[in-house]
């Protein structure tokens, strides 16, 4: 082979290599674009149902269709549990989610954990549009889902870790 031919084949090879990366860049762009347009687990304000236990507000939405009864038969809703991971002495204790559940320090809460950093009525887990959702009830130290403070109600996915004060609950 002559030197010129070698030069041509050398350059052609590198061009080919970089063509691969042009395609890769395009594939990555498509991926990233699909991600940014994808949905989030955070509920928009319009999606937040009116809390049942706030009596004075329930009258303002009398015509709201009860999404609870429409979807409650699906398998995502049933069989979910909240399992305590920390504190250690409660670790492993589990609470079945069959209806709305309140979490707090007060003995009347469905999930009652005695800890100074937990408010009396700290958070509630309820079902909305076929998904379990957690909402903070104005607690002093806040509620986190996978480490993110939830200002607005957040949809739960299996495996999510809920932080309430110093306690950690896993949604599964």
């Amino acid at each position, binding site marked *: 082979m002559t030197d010129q031919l*070698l030069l041509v084949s050398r350059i052609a*090879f590198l061009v*080919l290599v970089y063509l691969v990366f042009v*395609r890769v860049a395009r594939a990555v762009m498509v991926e990233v674009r699909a991600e940014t347009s994808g949905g989030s687990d955070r509920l928009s304000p319009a999606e937040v149902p009116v809390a049942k236990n706030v009596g004075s507000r329930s009258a303002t939405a009398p015509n709201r269709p009860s999404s609870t009864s429409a979807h409650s038969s699906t398998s995502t809703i049933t069989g979910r549990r909240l399992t305590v991971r920390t504190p250690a002495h409660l670790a492993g204790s589990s609470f079945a989610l069959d209806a709305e559940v309140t979490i707090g320090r007060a003995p009347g809460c469905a999930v009652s954990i005695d800890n100074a950093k937990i408010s009396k009525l700290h958070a509630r887990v309820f079902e909305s549009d076929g998904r379990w959702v957690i909402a903070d009830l104005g607690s002093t130290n806040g509620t986190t889902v996978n480490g993110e403070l939830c200002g607005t109600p957040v949809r739960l996915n299996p495996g999510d*870790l809920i932080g309430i004060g110093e306690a950690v609950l896993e949604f599964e």
Partner: protein
Amino acid sequence: MGRVRRAWRAVDPAGLGRIKPEIAAIHPRRVELGLIAMVGLVFVFALASLSGTSTLPSTLGPFLAWMLVLLVVAHVVTRRFAPAADPVLLPMALFLNGIGYVMIARLTGDVDGGSDLAGLQAIWTAVGIAAFTMTLVFVPRTRMLTRYRYLLGLVGVSLLVLPLVPGLGRSINGARIWASVGPVNFQPGEFAKIALAAFFAAYLVDSRELLRTRIELRDLAPILLAWGVSLAIMTFEKDLGSSLLFFALFVVVLWIASERAVFLAIGSALFAGGALMAWSTFAHVQQRVDIWLDPWADPRGAGFQIVEASFALADGGLTGTGLGRGEPGRVPFAESDFIFAAIGEELGLAGSVAVLMSFLVLIGSGLRIALRARGGFEKLFAVGLTTLLGVQAFVIMGGVLRVVPLTGITLPFVSYGGSSLVSNYVLLALLMRMSHEQRTVAPGDRP
């Protein structure tokens, strides 16, 4: 809804889940097939342009066919077991593997005992793809690894200390990182890193809520323990690369878990202290630093490898000498630790940058998987695996380029070596499994 799910179950006996509609529109596997086809073309072109030289093994034809079959097998496996996974991960790994294979085949006549390298690397690639397949088959949900967290931790630490066990451990080229079981030699550390990444992720995901809210002295115990272990590896195995890799993995996962940059600062401070201590105590560390600062002090002796690598890179220039036209065999260990110098010589800056870009794409995809992860464990695990890949690639490429002191470690997917290739394919399979999970609706999930 019920009918759709049943229909999917019929074609999905493994129960891996249904692809989300918005991802299905992109056809990740079709994109991947296109990319793999191009990678295959690059591979064939490279080997064909090598055929002008006489240094190639005579049996290259079968090897070529063998490697192309492996590309197709890897793609088919992904189609079957992780159909929704990110489409660029596998092609990038195969590209690196292919470029590495071409260089190893090319070095056959130039390095000591090189006549078998091409054949052995072809076998190792097959074992790697087999390990990739097994990982995808036996880890249908990444989360199941958390069940074995302590077992994985134990396995990881045992593998790390295995080279120190008398009778099993072997010292090759000054580093005691090999273990021999019967006729098989392998580097247990390559597998330990993955087990430890899983253990760290599973362990820290439990305690991260606490790590986040306050910081007490006993919270520092794990980081001090990790520091001690990595110092011990450096002391007893004389393996700087693994020591650094292991510590970087722990600090990064701890940082992501706690979301507190203070751990990064503590980790850096500990690393600096450990490095200084090692430098003042160990002659072999001092020598590495001296060579790094001035390889020309002893260009025929201690600095020989780095000096030759610098010559090789300079010789390559912008577009390289052309495949088969350089003399990469002059650099000791050009087929393993110094393969980046061989690529720099024959493919030039352009080829080296292509290798760098592949790692960049792999790391970018890995971090994207971590960002999208549904659960805490998956997030930390993806970060850990990506850190391993990135730090390892940086440490050895930086070492060859004299950016950092040289630490003997393999360039993932590119270097010759069975342990490295197989463990990195396992790592890739785990990342792809996580990618698949987050882009599908698992059976029992509502879309």
